[in-house]
C-alpha cells in the first residue's frame, strides 16, 4: 500500500470546497475565545476524491464477493435501500419538527414496528437503540427495572452461556448486575443441569442466543424458558442470529420475553465498515411500559379527523420507561432501509431468506465436513463452526487459514469465536450467495487444507496478495501511534 494519509497530501494555501460570500454584515468576534491555528488538511476536491477512492479500493466488501463472517450476516445490501434512504423528504427532516410535518417518517417508523412485531411475535417495539449491543443494554435495563418495579430488589444474577457474544456479559455488568456463566453440553445446547443451581430469588434472567454462536438451534430452548419463568426470571433473546429464524419461528411464542433485532444483519442494511447499525428491542406485553421513550403510536381517533387537525402518528413515552438510550428517535435512515427490505419480501420472502441462509450453510458444511474437524455434528442453522486445525499439519492454526483465504480473493470467516471451540472458524454464507459462489468458497477451503499439509509456510506467511502483508499487532499496541503527528513524520 502506498497511499499517503490525507495530511501528507496537504499543500499550504490549497483550498477545497468553496462557500458563498457572506451576505450579512460582520459582527465583532470574541477575540479572547478564538483559536490560533486550525490544523486541518489543505487539499483540493480532486485530491479528496482520488484519495478516498484509492482507499476504498483497499477494502474487501460484500459488493466484491462472498463475505461469510460468522455471526455478522453479511448478506447483499439491495441498492434500492440506498435510493430510498436518500429521498430528499427523508434526509431533510429535522427531528424536532412539528409532528404534523413528519407524518411520512412516523408512518414508516410505526409500520416498521408493526413489521418487526409480526416477524417476532412481540407486543411492543422500540426503534431507538443504535446497534445490537445498544439494544442488549436496553433489554437488560428493562429486565432490571421490571423486577425493581415489582419490589424484587434482591434479583441481581444474569445467566449467560459460555458460547455467548462478549457484549452479553458486558451489557450485564454495565447494568450493575452479576454475570454467571453457564456451560454448553455435549450437543452444544445450554446445560440445563448447570442452570438449576441458579433458579432462585436472585435470578434476573438468562441471555440466550438462538440459534447459538455454534449455529445450532438450542434443543432445550423451550425448557430453558419454562425453567427461568418458573423461577420468576425473564429470558433475553440475542437477535443477532434471527436470519435463521425469520418466518420459521417467532421468538416470543417459545418464551423469549425481550429481544433485540440487528437491522444491519437480518434486514439487509449495510454494515458501513463498522456502523451505523440499528438494534430495535421487542418485548412481551408485561415489559412494554419499560421501553425507552419515545415509541411511535397511531392515534386511532385522529384517523377520522381532518388531516391538518391532529397527527395520526405520534410519539409516546411509556410510563415506566428506563429512559431514552440515545438522542432523538434512533437511526432513522437505517430504519428506512430495513422497512424497504421487509416491504419487498413479505411473508414468503422473509421465510425464504431464512430457508436459503440455512440451506447455504448446510451445503457448505457438507462440502468441507470430511476435511475440517466439526466439534458439534448436527444440522446447523444459518452458520456453523469447524476447527481450523489438521492432525497431519500440526503447525497450522485457524489464523493461518483465515489469512490464506485472503490470497484467494475471498473474505475469511470469523475466527477464534466462539471461545468454547479451539481454533474456531465460524462460517455464515447467507442466502444471497449463489451455489456457485458457495462452491467456489468450499473449493478454496479444501485447497487450503491440502496446502496446510504440503506447504504450511504458504499459510503461515499469508496473505501474499493483499494491500499489506500480515500486520504487527503487538507493535501497534505497544507503540500506541493513534493519530498522525506532523512533528514526527
Amino acid at each position: 500500500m502506498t497511499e499517503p494519509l490525507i495530511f501528507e497530501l496537504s499543500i499550504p494555501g490549497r483550498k477545497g470546497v468553496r462557500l458563498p460570500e457572506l451576505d450579512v454584515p460582520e459582527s465583532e468576534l470574541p477575540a479572547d475565545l478564538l483559536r490560533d491555528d486550525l490544523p486541518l488538511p489543505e487539499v483540493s476536491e480532486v485530491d479528496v476524491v482520488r484519495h478516498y477512492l484509492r482507499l476504498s479500493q483497499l477494502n474487501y466488501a460484500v459488493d466484491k464477493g462472498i463475505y461469510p463472517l460468522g455471526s455478522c450476516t453479511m448478506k447483499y445490501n439491495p441498492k434500492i435501500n440506498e435510493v430510498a434512504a436518500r429521498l430528499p423528504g427523508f434526509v431533510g427532516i429535522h427531528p424536532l419538527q412539528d409532528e404534523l410535518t413528519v407524518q411520512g417518517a412516523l408512518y414508516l417508523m410505526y409500520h416498521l414496528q408493526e413489521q418487526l412485531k409480526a416477524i417476532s411475535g412481540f407486543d411492543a417495539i422500540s426503534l431507538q437503540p443504535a446497534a445490537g449491543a445498544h439494544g442488549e443494554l436496553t433489554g437488560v435495563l428493562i429486565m432490571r427495572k421490571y423486577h425493581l418495579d415489582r419490589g424484587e430488589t434482591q434479583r441481581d444474577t444474569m445467566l449467560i452461556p459460555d458460547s455467548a457474544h462478549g457484549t452479553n456479559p458486558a451489557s450485564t455488568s454495565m447494568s450493575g448486575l452479576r454475570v454467571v456463566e453457564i456451560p454448553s453440553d455435549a450437543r452444544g445446547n445450554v446445560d440445563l443441569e448447570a442452570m438449576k443451581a441458579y433458579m432462585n430469588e436472585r435470578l434476573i434472567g438468562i441471555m440466550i442466543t438462538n440459534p447459538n454462536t455454534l449455529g445450532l438451534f438450542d434443543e432445550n430452548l423451550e425448557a430453558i424458558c419454562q425453567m427461568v419463568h418458573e423461577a420468576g426470571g425473564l429470558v433475553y433473546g440475542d437477535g443477532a442470529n434471527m436470519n435463521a429464524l425469520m418466518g420459521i419461528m417467532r421468538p416470543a411464542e417459545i418464551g423469549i420475553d425481550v429481544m433485540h433485532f440487528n437491522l444491519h444483519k437480518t434486514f439487509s442494511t449495510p454494515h458501513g465498515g463498522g456502523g451505523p447499525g440499528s438494534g430495535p428491542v421487542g418485548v412481551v406485553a408485561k415489559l412494554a411500559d419499560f421501553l425507552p421513550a419515545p415509541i411511535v403510536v397511531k392515534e386511532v381517533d385522529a384517523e377520522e379527523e381532518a388531516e391538518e387537525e391532529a397527527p395520526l402518528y405520534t410519539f409516546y413515552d411509556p410510563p415506566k420507561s428506563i429512559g431514552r438510550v440515545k438522542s432523538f428517535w434512533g437511526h432513522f435512515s437505517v430504519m428506512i432501509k430495513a422497512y424497504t427490505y421487509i416491504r419487498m419480501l413479505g411473508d414468503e420472502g422473509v421465510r425464504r431468506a431464512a430457508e436459503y441462509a440455512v440451506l447455504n450453510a448446510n451445503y457448505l458444511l457438507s462440502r468441507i465436513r470430511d476435511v475440517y474437524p466439526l466439534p458439534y455434528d448436527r444440522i446447523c442453522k444459518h452458520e456453523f463452526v469447524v476447527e481450523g486445525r489438521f492432525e497431519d499439519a500440526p503447525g497450522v492454526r485457524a489464523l493461518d487459514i483465515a489469512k490464506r483465504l485472503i490470497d484467494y480473493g475471498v473474505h475469511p470467516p470469523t475466527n477464534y469465536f466462539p471461545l468454547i471451540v479451539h481454533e474456531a472458524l465460524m462460517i455464515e454464507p447467507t442466502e444471497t450467495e449463489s451455489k456457485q459462489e458457495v462452491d467456489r468458497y468450499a473449493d478454496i477451503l479444501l485447497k487450503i487444507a491440502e496446502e496446510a499439509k504440503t506447504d504450511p509456510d504458504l499459510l503461515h506467511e499469508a496473505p501474499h496478495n493483499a494491500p499489506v502483508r500480515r500486520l504487527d499487532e503487538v507493535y501497534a499496541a505497544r507503540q500506541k501511534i493513534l493519530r498522525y503527528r506532523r512533528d514526527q513524520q
Partner: protein
Amino acid sequence: MKIDPQCRYTKSHEWARKEDDLIVIGITDYAQQTLSDIVYVELPEEGDEITKGEAFGVVESVKAASDIYAPVSGEVVAVNEKLEDEPELVNSDPFGEGWLIKVRPDDAGEMDELLTPEDYEKVVAEEEAH
C-alpha cells in the same frame, strides 16, 4: 521455563516472595509465555486492600485479558510503575523487573499455604499435558 526457588506459587500462576516484612507479587514465567506479548498491565493503587484469591489486576495481550489473583491478603504499598510504559518487562523478566505489586500482608502465615516451587512445577507439567 523458569521457576524461582525463592518464591511460593498459586495454581493460577502468580508468584509471591518475601522481602523483609513485605511480599512481592508477580506472574510466573509460564504465565507470561502462555499469554504471549503483554501490552498492558492494570494494577491497583497504593493503599488499596487486596484479598487472597480475588482478582486485583489484569494483564492484557493483544488477544486476551487475564485476571491476576491475590496470593495473600494485605495492603498494597507499592506498584511497579515502570510497567505503565514497559509492560514487556513482564515477558522479559517476570520474577525480577516485571514484578507487579508489593503488599504488607495481613497475615504473614498465608505465605505458607501457597504452593512450593516443586508443587508448582507439577501444576505446570499437568497443564502442559493437556
